[in-house]
């Protein structure tokens, strides 16, 4: 079972992944302390740390242009819908109220 480590904990040399922030932290020979960050850390093999690097890089490369279009069109949709939202009648008062 995986052992999670708290931020700031003194640890052995190796690679540590923070599943909350998706950060990978190398700790040099002789050991060191994990950085202060939200979430906890998990020691991972070197191959996982090196393998995750291009995966995160390429995922971000695909995400950025799509996020740009999605946010832009959501914003436009919000602007178009704004007059209709303002014109909507106020809800009827509760019965007997």
């Amino acid at each position, binding site marked *: 079972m995986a052992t999670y480590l708290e931020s700031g904990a003194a640890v052995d*040399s190796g690679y540590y992944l923070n599943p909350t*922030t*998706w950060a990978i932290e*190398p700790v040099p020979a002789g050991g060191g302390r994990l950085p202060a960050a939200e979430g906890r850390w998990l020691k991972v093999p070197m191959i996982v740390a*090196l393998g995750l690097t291009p995966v*995160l*890089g390429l*995922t971000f490369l695909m995400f950025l242009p799509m996020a740009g279009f999605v946010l*832009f069109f959501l914003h436009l949709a919000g602007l178009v819908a704004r007059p209709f939202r303002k014109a909507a009648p106020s809800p009827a008062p509760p019965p007997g109220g």
Partner: protein
Amino acid sequence: MSAPYIVRFSLKQRVEHLLTMVIFALLCLTGLPQKFFTAGWAQTLVHLFGGFDSMRWIHRGCGILLALSTVLHFSTAITGMLSRKVAFSMVPTRKDFRDLVQQLRYYLGSEPHQPLYDRFTYKEKFEYWGLVAGNVIMVGTGLVLFFPVIVARLLPGQLIPVAKVAHSNEGLMAFLVITLWHIFNAHLSPDVFPFDTAMFTGKVSRERYAHEHPLELARLEGRPPPTPGEAHDAHQDEADQGVA
């Protein structure tokens, strides 16, 4: 008293950038005329490079240099990661995904503050990973086009026209990304206009660093990270002093 400037890029990084810049410019100048060979400007460039044959050889030479610099960069990066002494600062984290959304929402007027950045912003990481992926595609497809007979002996022949389409379109996209995105960020953005010298001198003023990379600056100076409101107020005060 804090230092007036921060050293942001090492000599090796600056030389690498300069080489990439020169090689990339030459690759565009000798590659795009091959794609748009009927255009007047393309024919002018072909004549300037001494005809199609010599232009193609210059393009291949630059391609080999780009391949070598890419291999060298990857080896240095992997060696650094294996040493466990180099931080994975160019690898996107969840914060970059959030920063991107917050920054775009700020540009659209639905967020009061811009995100606070660490050593590299999401824009810099995007450009870096775009260059990494682009170089791999361009070098791979370029080698297929350079040695089509050898490739066809080992792999299906359909790979050659596929490589031609990928090389040609990725090349055009890289050219557009650099001319639109990189030129804006390095020259036309109001923060750096007319020219961001950081990649050539390696240095950035502390004032600019406090605005652009406040989280890293706080860490370097041993301070707790500022909140978005504090960073905005500090930048506004410095801007006001500059005006006064």
